[in-house]
């Protein structure tokens, strides 16, 4: 169980271990916890995936509904990403309006999905200027054991890749059809603990970290989003090294998200 107040002793211990290239749970610095993806967890969604990274659990559901396109993009569909860090998932989350942490997760995931052109928004358009599909990507954090951003995008991608456009239900086409996914963005998050860079931080490692960097990559070799978070700094050389690792981890996670074997 994570502590509401992480003791300095634990933080110091995590930093001491990091100095020796070790981690509390025995992982290597460049090693993820076990990742699993369960597609179709929620049948009320048009696509869904439950992702676990270690003891972090995130559920994403995609829903598509007819709506109006934005006036300035009459030929494009609408994509909305929303993450909820619900108080069920951690002693540190409180009920109430979305906290900055939830907004950050939403926006970083949204940027990666958008920049990677994960779905072709023009294909969502039904009647230009009048009717389009609105694609809602909702992300629910169920168990907060650290590294929410990677789990959130992986869940969103897992939900999108297995989503069905409910065209029949809304009388827009004769049959439902699979949502076409063009690209596979995946986020990879690192923290700096002392002078050691570690991938896939736990909750306690995030609390001890001097900076967090998330790098989203896609399968074509593009970097599609980045976000530096927490208090701390990274050198350009460190960032370059993390980018290389982000592609290696990203390729493995893409396989998992698609339902392949890692």
């Amino acid at each position, binding site marked *: 169980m994570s502590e509401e107040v992480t003791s300095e002793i634990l933080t110091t*211990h995590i930093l001491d271990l990091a100095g020796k290239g070790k981690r509390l749970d025995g992982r290597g610095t460049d090693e993820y916890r076990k990742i699993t993806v369960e597609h179709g967890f929620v049948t009320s969604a048009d696509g869904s995936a439950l992702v676990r990274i270690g003891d972090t659990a995130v559920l994403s559901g995609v829903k598509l509904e007819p709506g109006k396109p934005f006036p300035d993009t009459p030929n494009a569909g609408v994509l909305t990403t929303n993450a909820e860090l619900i108080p069920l998932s951690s002693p540190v989350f409180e009920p109430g309006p979305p906290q900055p942490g939830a907004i950050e997760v939403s926006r970083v995931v949204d940027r990666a999905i958008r920049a990677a052109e994960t779905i072709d928004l023009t294909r969502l358009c039904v009647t230009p200027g009048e009717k389009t599909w609105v694609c809602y990507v909702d992300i629910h954090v169920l168990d907060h054991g650290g590294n929410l951003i990677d789990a959130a995008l992986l869940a969103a991608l897992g939900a999108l890749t297995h989503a069905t456009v409910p065209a029949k239900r809304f009388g827009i086409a004769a049959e439902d059809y699979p949502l076409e996914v063009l690209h596979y963005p995946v986020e990879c998050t690192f923290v700096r603990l002392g002078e050691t860079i570690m991938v896939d931080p736990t909750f306690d490692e995030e609390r001890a970290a001097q900076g967090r960097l998330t790098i989203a990559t896609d399968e074509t070799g593009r970097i599609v989003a980045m976000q530096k978070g927490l208090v701390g700094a990274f050198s350009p050389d460190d960032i370059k090294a993390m980018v290389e690792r982000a592609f290696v981890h990203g390729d493995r996670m893409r396989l998992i998200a698609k339902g392949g074997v890692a």
Partner: protein
Amino acid sequence: MGSSHRPGPRRRGHAGSSSHPSGDRVLVLPGEEIASQGLKPGPGTYRVGGKLYASVLGLVSPQPPFVQVIPLSGRYIPKPNDVVIGTVTDAQGTFWLLDIGAPRWAPLHMTGTPWQVEIGETEKFLRVKESVVVRVENLDATGRIGVTMLGDGLGKLEGGSIFRISPARIPRVVGRGGSMIQTITQRTGAQVAVGQNGRIWVDGDPEAIHRVREALRMISEDGLRSGLTERVDSYLRSTSRSDDEGVQVPPSETAHRDASESHFASTPPSEGGDEPGDQNN
């Protein structure tokens, strides 16, 4: 539900005396009737219309003239004289607030320390996020938990690491007659201080700390099965480097060494004990 039906004593008992499996221990759930056999309702029970019922999930433990239910889960419920490990959440003018994993934060007053603390200078001695070993002194009807740092083995913790486990598992960590904790410290060479609140302080080389952590994880995840000490011993043997065995822990002058040693003296392991008296250790 008439609370008027429920007699005292209502304070919940502590898991301290036993959660080990044995034939005569019956698992009960809230609302399940308990065969009272003429015994009075103790902690974890309530009475309605002459019948006794469990109020918590736990094991039935007859301790004449009472019968109680020993919880198997939940937050740490303090009782006087428990030695616990806490982390400072706030430093006020004359006291600190400690998170000891209990329902409420516990105030540690500056007079309850061995230090000469001036009013307003609490932070010079203990800062937020630092950790201490304290003893529960008293509990009042408002749920306030009084703790003290005056006493053998109590003090500020330095170095090492702190792990958490369900307070209900603490008797398993200690083991019958201290067997489990002795196995762990002997096989790893680590120093270990066990707080009754489920916080466990461990010091030693990183490898030793890691092996203690794994042993605690085994205890935490193992069902209430028997032979746990043997399984933990087997794990620790299989992971030991030969030069680990019998390593003498170098004496240390900081409080934490005292904390770990005298803690065991002041809290006799009681996994096998079924006596009501164990509750007060």
